[in-house]
């Protein structure tokens, strides 16, 4: 469930554009206005605002925001304003570049999005970067990481509820054997994680637990230093219980000394219009503190305000 709130009486697009233009003019910037408008519009509305703003003022709204805003607040607003497909394309592209490379972000995007969302991200990638996501992932990753990530970003999974229980049994057994032999990058492990539908994987993992006693995640914790193993673990989480994965990311981002604004921004901006409510509930359940309270404690200023608005805190 989304945490984004949109007013029942939304101003017209031209009004929104006018207000935004006002927010940029004169001395300084009216950040509150920007938060109030953009923070309460869905993807379709934001796209329309961008289009109309460009037609009316001859300037890309994103460029204007870039000029006026700075630092963490700017990054959050920019990421949020993009529509989900472009946002995913941007995040994925950054994740393939040398200084910002992140196998984890690539996996996160590939596994927590629906099949069609991932597809739209791939289409947006073509349009924005004049190449395909998979060619960049293939070119910039190596070894076991490439072996896992390439099928993940190329998948177009079946999304129905049809599940084959016999197959679930067979594949649970297969996974158990491979994991016991520490063959984490075995072709068969990759096949299950990279091609099966989420419903099928779920059935397989349930069977795994019933048959072998342990949650597969527990069996994937053998070596804490093994980065590939950590990626496999996260992959499983993203595929079957993404809210737990995101809760962990948020918890680590907020609790560590200082804050990992990159991760916080990424999760809030990419999930606010999808399942941030479920993630927030999980956060509260796990940490006995509402997510919004943790955000208030750990961040400040306009960055904090925007995060709260996106997290559904209407008083911000």
């Amino acid at each position, binding site marked *: 469930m989304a945490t984004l709130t949109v007013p029942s009486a939304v101003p017209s697009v031209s009004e929104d554009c006018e207000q935004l233009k006002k927010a940029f003019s004169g001395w300084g910037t009216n950040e509150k206005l920007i938060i109030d408008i953009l923070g309460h519009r869905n993807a379709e509305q934001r796209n329309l605002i961008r289009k109309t703003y460009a037609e009316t003022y001859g300037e890309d709204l994103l460029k204007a925001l870039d000029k006026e805003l700075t630092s963490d607040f700017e990054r959050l607003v920019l990421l949020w304003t993009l529509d989900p497909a472009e946002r995913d394309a941007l995040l994925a592209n950054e994740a393939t570049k040398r200084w910002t490379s992140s196998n984890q972000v690539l996996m996160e995007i590939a596994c927590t999005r629906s099949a069609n969302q991932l597809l739209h991200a791939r289409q947006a990638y073509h349009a924005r970067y*004049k190449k395909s996501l*998979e*060619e960049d992932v293939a070119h910039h990753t190596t070894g076991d990481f490439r072996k896992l990530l390439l099928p993940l970003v*190329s998948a177009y999974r079946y999304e129905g509820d049809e599940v084959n229980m016999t197959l679930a049994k067979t594949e649970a057994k297969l996974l158990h054997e491979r994991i016991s032999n520490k063959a984490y990058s075995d*072709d068969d492990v990759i096949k299950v994680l990279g091609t099966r539908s989420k419903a099928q994987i779920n059935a397989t993992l349930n069977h795994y637990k019933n048959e072998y006693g342990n949650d597969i995640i527990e069996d994937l914790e053998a070596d804490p230093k093994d980065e590939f193993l950590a990626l496999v673990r996260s992959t499983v989480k993203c595929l079957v219980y993404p809210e737990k994965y995101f809760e962990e990311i948020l918890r680590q981002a907020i609790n560590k000394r200082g804050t990992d604004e990159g991760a916080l921004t990424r999760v809030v901006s990419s999930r606010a219009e999808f399942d941030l409510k479920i993630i927030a509930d999980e956060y509260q359940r796990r940490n006995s503190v509402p997510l919004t309270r943790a955000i208030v404690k750990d961040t400040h200023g306009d960055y904090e305000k925007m995060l709260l608005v996106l997290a559904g805190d209407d008083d911000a």
Partner: protein
Amino acid sequence: MRKGCSKLFCEDEHQFERWNHAVLTNLKAEFKRFKDVVVLSLMHPWERDARLLKKSLKKGHEQYNVIVEITCTRSSDQLLGARKAYHSLFDRSIEEDLASHIKGSERKLLVALVSAYRYEGPKVKEDNVRSEAKAFFNAIKNSDKRKVVEDDEVVRILTTRSKLHLKEVYEQYNKLSDKTIIEELEVDLLLKETVECLCTPQTYFTRVFGVALSGDANEDEKKALTRLVATQEGGEMKGVVAKFERRIEEKVKGAYKDVLVGVLAKDGK
């Protein structure tokens, strides 16, 4: 009437005119070919490709070239459409079926080919073209120690790069060697067809047409002609078809020929 057609019917010991067995078999094959080309032509391309892929997978190794043909000669959106249709028709994804049923080094190639959503624009990065032609060169040079299809870089390049990029890699390779990539891959048949379909589709179509229309084509080779005619839309095939018009006139008969010629004409060749 039957009594007059001694070629088609023969006197049986039980005093009735029996169909000459060889003739009957031929007739059935011809009508089936006719049926196939009609059914294939009328089906939505996405459903058509999904069913063709499923069938090839079932038939096994000798039909894997059909998987190559479909995944490499369709546009990115057509291939995507086939994947969507596959979900609807079979409640599975094509990639999971391929990954489950194909073993060995060809699995990696075929699964990756079916999963590609290639960029289709004009931009090509020259640096990558050069280094990737070199990667091919090295893989081919070491092919006595390791099959080219098992070279990770070769598979990466072929299964992720845009077709325009691949055509340039193919050209660039010719500067590095006096043989073309296709000439070097005579042993790796599936890989050779992959390169053909992606880089020089005309040679692929010409070869398939030529074999199908030659005197001693087998069933699969003839079926390939039907499939190409019914599934390729003008474009790359235009020049090829013109070359074979006369042979089609000569070699193909009856209702099947009419449909063939009709389908080819419709595509505005």
